[in-house]
């Protein structure tokens, strides 16, 4: 007799991985002072690139790399607009997202309905048999397993490495970087593009591991949830990890309930992740804004034009 809770939690981990990758990527970018609403676009681009590359090459790992590349490339467009050309960050991010929507529709048309050699779940020998924890943590695709390490790695890079210090300085007080001879622009470029790569990896996980499919607009707002997630995780990679599982759970609720024949309206369930996001942000209130990197706070409070 399968357990609803286990199903939801297992789904939370598997489904939350894509959001986590995107969230980690966005954390790096925002820590450097740049908000990227194009995260949704990078995920979508990564999803298609991964699917197409896997279909063409036969190897899902090639697909994963392609996903990273696509996500990074889209983020690079945003980076150029915002850093070199000083465009408004919100407008630029959404434009890139829209651009990605079109790109993936055009180039993805021939991949709808096509099957690929996907990254199937692989039970970790021994660990997967542990009651409760086994199916929740150890019966997933390889990219999910990878994510267990990526989150702490991002934390370490941000807080214990020289590069991370530069990234954080760019987001807190970029003049200090200038005085010490570093280029704020370069640090931001690297942060945004690396962040985009991680988003692309999230999209890849979504298409070649989790859903095992490609269709137009398949990310359905996960990228935006990731952006909100970073805010209420107060830009801390470990909290991003926890929060993404929370949203994974909200997303997994619908199919789990449906599979058990509960007649809850599907659309009400679909709306839950978004409502939960808003509720959490509301509960945390203004404290989150105070915890923001100083330069990022100015982006939130600065105006259009």
């Amino acid at each position, binding site marked *: 007799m399968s357990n609803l809770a286990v199903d939801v939690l297992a789904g939370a981990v598997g489904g939350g991985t894509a959001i986590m990758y995107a969230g980690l990527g966005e954390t790096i970018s925002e820590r450097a002072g740049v908000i990227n609403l194009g995260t949704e676009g990078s995920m979508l681009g990564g999803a298609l690139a991964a699917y197409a590359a896997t279909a063409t090459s036969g190897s899902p790992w090639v697909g994963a790399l392609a996903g990273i590349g696509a996500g990074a490339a889209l983020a690079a467009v945003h980076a150029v607009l915002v850093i070199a050309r000083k465009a408004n960050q919100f407008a630029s991010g959404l434009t890139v997202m829209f651009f990605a929507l079109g790109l993936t529709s055009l180039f993805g048309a021939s991949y709808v309905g096509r099957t690929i050699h996907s990254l199937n779940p692989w039970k970790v020998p021994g660990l997967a048999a542990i009651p409760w924890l086994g199916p929740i943590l150890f019966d997933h695709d390889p990219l999910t397993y990878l994510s267990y390490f990526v989150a702490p790695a991002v934390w370490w890079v941000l807080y*214990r*490495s*020289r*590069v991370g*210090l*530069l990234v*954080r*300085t760019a987001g*807190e*007080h970029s*003049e*200090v*970087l200038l*005085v*010490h*001879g570093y280029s704020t622009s370069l640090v931001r470029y690297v942060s945004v593009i690396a962040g985009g790569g991680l988003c692309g990896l999230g999209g890849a996980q979504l298409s070649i591991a989790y859903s095992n499919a490609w269709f137009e607009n398949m990310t359905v707002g996960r990228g935006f949830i990731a952006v909100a997630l970073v805010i209420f995780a107060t830009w801390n990679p470990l909290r991003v990890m926890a929060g993404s599982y929370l949203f994974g759970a909200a997303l997994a609720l619908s199919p789990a309930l449906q599979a058990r024949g509960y007649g809850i309206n599907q659309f009400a369930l679909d709306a839950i992740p978004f409502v939960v996001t808003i509720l959490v942000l509301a509960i945390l209130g203004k404290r989150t804004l*105070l915890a923001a*990197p*100083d330069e990022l706070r100015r982006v939130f409070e600065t105006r259009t*034009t």
Partner: protein
Amino acid sequence: MTTTTTAAPETTTTEPLLQVTGFTKQFGEVLANSNVSFDVRPGEVHALIGENGAGKSTLLKLVYGMYKPDAGELRVAGEQVAVGSPTQARALGIGMVFQDLRLVPAFTVTENYALALATSGVTLRQGELRRRIAEASESYGLAVDPTALVRHLSIGERQRTEILKVLMSGARIVILDEPTSVLAPTEVEALFAMVNGLREQGLGIVIVTHKLAEVRAIADRVTVLRGGRVVLAGADPKPMTDAELIEAMVGQTVAALPAERPTVVSDAPPALELIGVSALGDRGVTALRDVTLTVNPGEIVGVAGVAGSGQRELCEVAVGARHPSEGTVRVSGRELGRGGPTAGIAAGAVDVPEDPVNDAVVPTLTVLEHMALGHLKAFARRIGLDWRRIGRHTMDINEKVQLRMAPAHRRVADLSGGNIQRVMLSRALGREANLVVAAYPSRGLDIATTRRTQELLLARRAEGAGLLVVSEDLDELMAVADRIAVFCAGRLTGIVPAATTNRQELGALMTATEATATDSTTEAPAGEATMEKAQS
């Protein structure tokens, strides 16, 4: 004090550590530096003075590699060099402590140092860096806690941190840009003791300041810049009087403020009453504690205190821009309650904000549009605003105030700091008011305009307004105010008559409470100052 990293002291070569010859720098139409020559010898303190706009900061930026000179040469320890960037300057042994200390508040001291001291490798090695900081702190005698979060340090402590950082980078020439403007008198003494110690070790120190008494106290030589040129090179400041130095800086004698002033009799209600007021700052920390203070009509109350003692919150509470968490605020007899800035404006309060760029300047708006702000209802027509009337009003203000404000159609955001200040002052002092709250009114202004501003404050006083004036310049306060209220860590520590007080008394009151973090290099604060809250 034992040294571990610097060269042997007592070098008596007269070869300058730093020698600038004929620096010239032009920005568009403006000649910021013209044929400026300047040098620093080992074991000397050389003061560089001049009023706002004289070219001091340009000269510093040229030396530090932030600009390239159009002409002239620079020699360090006798060798000609071209300094292309601050990193190069540091490599040559030139260290600069900026006025707006370039520290990241959200990081610890160690993380800030990690940015500056290029350590190799991918990881930060914070443990090792902490050890090095502790060692250097000991050997230079500058108490710095490597694990402290910069945000929690007082300004004096931050400055110390910055200076130690500069020394650890191997500086032989230390440039201090306006170091004392944010310090209390005892902290200034501690700074000078530190500077003397560095001088004994053979370093060359350049100190940029506009405080003439300090120049005489600490400097071996003084150079005066005016209009981008050197008008007095390397003179001994001790025998010079204030008037002579001012004349060198300004080119004319500037009239002193009148010593006598009329007593104003008025039966109007007090301009400002704060009764038991406590208030929180932006980050939720208590900024004002149980303050009771009255400003009477026809008097100027000066506010003195170390930066961050609550002056900002005091000014905001007085005009309704911040709600007190406890207590009552009354302007001209009317209680502000929760009315906010609207209530303050209605009660007749005007203010010159501490941070105009962030708090009062609207980027896309012109000077004219700024003059309308705060009084939109008065200029309202049936639909929209009567811009013609606003224009006439602005002209009237400008004539009355004579502060040479920028033309009405200029965008305020494009103006320089000093010009923005003129707009703010014109707006606040150009109309009648019951209460004028002026925070650092002379910031960014040249001496002549400063004098004019002070005259305007006195004029308002004569018309019966009550004024609250915050300034970091104790001399200005003693000249302008009738009484001086001193704050320390959010508490009012004393109110004294301006005519009879002195720097020692004020300094003692400014540091009268042990509220801030450890500051062990200063001597124990004077215990004679009375700590009772002044009633007025």
